[in-house]
C-alpha cells in the first residue's frame, strides 16, 4: 500500500493509523513520547505537592483562598467535551469521511481555545486579585509551572491540529495523513488525562485545604 494511494470507503483499511510502516513507527514512537510526558508531568505534580501553600509570610493567599469551583468546573467541562469531539473526528477518519473529520476537529479546536482563554483569564485574576504570581512564593512558582506547562501543551496541541487541518484541507484523507491526525488526537486525549489530575490535585484538593 502506497501512502499516496487513492482510497474509497470500501478500500480504506480498518486501521489506517497503523497501515504503513511509517504509521506503525509514528504510533510506537508517539506512545513512547507519552510515557516520557507522564514522567514530566509527574515530576511537576510532585514539586507542586511538596511546595503547595509554602509562602514566605501569612499575608500571602493560600490554595483554599484563591481556587473557586465555578472556574475549575467550566474549564474541566470544556476540555472533557473537546476530548469527545476528537473521538468523533477519529470515528469519521476511520470511516473515510474527511469533511466530517475536519468539522469535528474544528469543534475540538474551538473548545480547546475557549479553555485556553479561560485559563489566561484565571491567571490574570490570581495575579491582580491575590498578588499570586510566579515569583511571589514557592507555591506560586510550582502552581504556574504545573498549570502553565499544561496550558502550553494545550496551545501546542491547538497549533498542531490547526496546522494539520489547513495543510491537508485540499488533499483529503490518505495513508500519508491519517496517522498524523490519529497521533494528534492521541496527544489531545493525553492533555485531557493530565487535566483530570490537575483539576483533582490542584483545584479540588486545594479547595479541601
Amino acid at each position, binding site marked *: 500500500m502506497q501512502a499516496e494511494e487513492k482510497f474509497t470507503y470500501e478500500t480504506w483499511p480498518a486501521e489506517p493509523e497503523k497501515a504503513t510502516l511509517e504509521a506503525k513507527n509514528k504510533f510506537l514512537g508517539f506512545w*513512547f513520547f507519552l510515557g516520557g510526558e507522564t514522567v514530566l508531568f509527574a515530576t511537576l505534580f510532585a514539586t507542586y505537592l511538596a511546595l503547595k501553600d509554602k509562602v514566605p509570610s501569612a499575608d500571602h493567599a493560600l490554595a483554599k483562598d484563591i481556587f473557586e469551583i465555578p472556574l475549575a468546573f467550566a474549564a474541566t467541562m470544556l476540555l472533557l467535551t473537546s476530548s469527545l469531539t476528537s473521538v468523533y473526528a477519529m470515528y469519521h477518519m476511520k470511516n473515510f469521511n474527511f469533511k466530517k473529520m475536519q468539522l469535528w476537529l474544528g469543534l475540538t479546536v474551538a473548545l480547546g481555545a475557549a479553555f485556553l482563554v479561560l485559563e489566561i483569564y484565571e491567571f490574570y485574576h490570581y495575579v491582580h486579585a491575590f498578588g499570586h504570581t510566579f515569583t511571589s512564593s514557592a507555591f506560586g512558582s510550582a502552581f504556574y509551572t504545573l498549570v502553565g506547562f499544561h496550558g502550553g501543551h494545550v496551545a501546542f496541541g491547538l497549533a498542531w491540529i490547526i496546522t494539520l487541518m489547513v495543510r491537508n484541507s485540499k488533499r483529503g484523507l490518505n495513508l500519508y495523513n491519517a496517522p498524523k491526525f490519529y497521533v494528534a488526537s492521541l496527544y489531545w486525549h493525553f492533555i485531557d488525562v493530565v487535566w483530570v489530575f490537575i483539576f483533582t490535585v490542584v483545584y479540588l*484538593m486545594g479547595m479541601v485545604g
Partner: protein
Amino acid sequence: MANQQPSSGNPRVDVAYRRKKSAEEMRYQIVSFTLMIFLTIVAFVAVGYEGFSGWFTVPFILLLAVVQVIFQLYYFMHMSHKGHEAPALFLYSGVVVGAVTILAFTTIIWW
C-alpha cells in the same frame, strides 16, 4: 494484499462488518464520556459539600480521577484494542517512575 482489513474477499461484507464494529465502539465511547462527566460532577459535589472531612474527600476524588483516566486511556485512546502492548509498557513505565517521584517529594517534606 498487505492490507490489514479483515478480508472475506467480498468488500461489501467487510464494509458492513466494519460499520457495525465502529457503531459498537462509538457506543462504548459515549458511555465512557457520560461516566467521565458523571465522575467529574461527583468529585466537584464532594468537594463543594461541607459535610465531608478532608480525610474522606481527598482519597475519594483521587480514586474518581484514576477511574476517569482509565476510561480515557482504554476507550478514548483505544488502549483496549489489540496491538497496544508496547504503548502499555511505555505508559506504565512512565507511571511507575512518576509515582516514585511523587512518593519521594511528598515524603521528603513530611517532617
